[in-house]
């Protein structure tokens, strides 16, 4: 890339500027960003150390190194496996529904007419609503005594639907809120992807009278695949760490029905003051997201290079 080499040559061309200053400059400029990195890495390492300790805020004298003790305890702990299972179920459900719905909407809005653009802008609004506030909105709408949604299901003869307060429908309800907030994210990315696809293959297919389903599965989907993968990984990473919606809606309840990783870790820390266990739980979540995010970053960089024309 030309910009890499061009600065040193420039430094030679302007003899007034000594070379060492140019060398130092990038480091000076990125100093604040470096500080932020340190501010992230120090607590991160601290958390890793805590996860290897018996560390309870209410019993400080018991504090000590126990190696993998916290992790080994998880293996035989049904609460941990419940957390694991709930998190995975929540993630799979939200990502699959949001992907299918988001792709469907993007296909519907594909032609850039004024009406389609207006719709896609309106769909931005749920995405720009704070997830915690969105949960409160749905809480009001699903209130058993006056909630409009409770009223609407009662019209269909379901009189006792308790939404988030019933173990059998709690997961459905928070997934619904997540879908409401985040489907537009997938839609927007895929719409941008769809509109950036080259036109020729589609024109050729139309000329040859190729059936629409063939065009969709053999041309549209494969060409859209990088965008689909990036969007789903993005959501997968956020969804498995969901906190705001679930905490604002039920704080992990009823019972332990919605105890996803971060809610469980939060309660371990603040309610049971068990720092070691909380940290170990978060380290396991970090391991999962780290594997996913490495795949994601690779994909995303490829897409980004293509969008910026360096490929």
């Amino acid at each position, binding site marked *: 890339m030309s910009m890499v080499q061009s600065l040193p040559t420039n430094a030679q061309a302007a003899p007034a500027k000594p070379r060492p200053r140019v060398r130092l400059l990038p480091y000076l400029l990125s100093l604040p960003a470096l500080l932020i990195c340190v501010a*992230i890495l120090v607590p991160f390492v601290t958390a890793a150390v805590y996860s290897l300790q018996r560390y309870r805020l209410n019993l400080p004298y018991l504090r000590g190194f126990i190696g993998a003790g916290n992790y080994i305890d998880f293996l035989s702990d049904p609460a941990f496996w419940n957390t694991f299972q709930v998190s995975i179920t929540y993630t799979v459900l939200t990502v699959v529904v949001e992907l299918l719905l988001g792709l469907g909407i993007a296909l519907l809005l594909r032609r850039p007419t004024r009406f389609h653009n207006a719709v896609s802008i309106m769909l931005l609004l749920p995405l720009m609503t704070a997830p915690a506030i969105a949960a409160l909105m749905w809480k009001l709408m699903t209130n058993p005594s*006056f909630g409009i949604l409770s009223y609407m299901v009662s019209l269909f003869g379901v009189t006792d639907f308790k939404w988030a307060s019933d173990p059998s429908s709690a997961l459905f309800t928070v997934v619904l809120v997540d879908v409401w907030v985040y489907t537009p994210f997938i839609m*927007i990315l895929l719409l941008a992807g769809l509109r950036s696809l080259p036109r020729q293959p589609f024109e050729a297919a139309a000329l040859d009278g190729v059936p629409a389903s063939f065009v969709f599965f053999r041309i549209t989907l494969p060409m859209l695949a990088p965008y689909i993968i990036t969007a789903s990984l993005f959501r997968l990473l*956020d969804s498995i760490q969901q906190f705001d919606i679930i905490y604002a809606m039920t704080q992990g309840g009823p019972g332990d029905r919605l105890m996803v990783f971060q809610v469980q870790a939060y309660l371990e820390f603040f309610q049971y003051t068990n720092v070691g266990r909380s940290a170990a739980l978060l380290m396991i979540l970090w391991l999962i997201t780290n594997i996913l995010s490495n795949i994601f970053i690779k994909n995303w960089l490829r897409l980004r290079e293509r*969008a910026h024309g360096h490929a």
Partner: protein
Amino acid sequence: MEHSSLAGRIFRGIALTLILIFFMFPIVWIFMMSFQNNDQILRIPPRILFEPTLANYEALISGQLRTAAGSLQMPFMRNLFNSVVLSSAAVLLALLLGVPAAYAFARFKFRLGETIAFTLLSFRFAPPLLVLLPLSLYYQELGLSDTYFGIVWVYQLIALPLILWIVRGYFEDISPDIEHAYRLAGHSWREAFTRIAVPLAGPGIAAAGLLSFIFCWNNFVFALILASADKQPVTVGALAFVTASGIQYGQIAAAIVLSVTPTLLLALYAQRYLVEGLSLGAVKG
């Protein structure tokens, strides 16, 4: 796709209508609810037409909540003020620190730069509690917990990576030749940066700034852990409000409307930048 059958067009019309209802209805409904008193809200079946009242907003603005049990102090305006202060300060600081760093990452290829950029990117996807919980213990020792300064500082974890990655992409898209020509004319790098590079990357900087403002405003978990009542932004304040006010549904709805209006207006204003920003610059909008 271009010339579809009548059945196809009807199907698309119905599908789009259902989609619009699903995504817009909650916003419209809560907005309407915020202009109703409790009797109107509790009426079954609910009515679309009603006599609007401003009482909920008046109660929130005066901070006096009238319940059946008596009057209750509810400083929701304080939460709104905190959101404005925290989000604006965080974004200003992040722009001040982030734009020069993004420039350095784009113009000089150096290993530390890449390492920083990737560390920030990978922690964008790490569980926030992993960093926040130990940080809350450090903050207590340092006396930073429950200070505006401390909260603005942790908001950098949201705003700075976003600004770094988006603005970097914009700087990379600007040819360095213009800056070289300007510098050959005897100007310093600082002049080239402030007079050439920053104005050219203006749209990207604006997009990154707006988007990080929205993300800071919408953030919930940082302030939940680090702020006590008088420093809490609207996201945390609204939840406390629901618990405290109990059955004052109209006022809850009004609080929700006040909490989301700033970001929704910003989003509408900046919509053409959002696609780019949301994907961290991976998709050119």
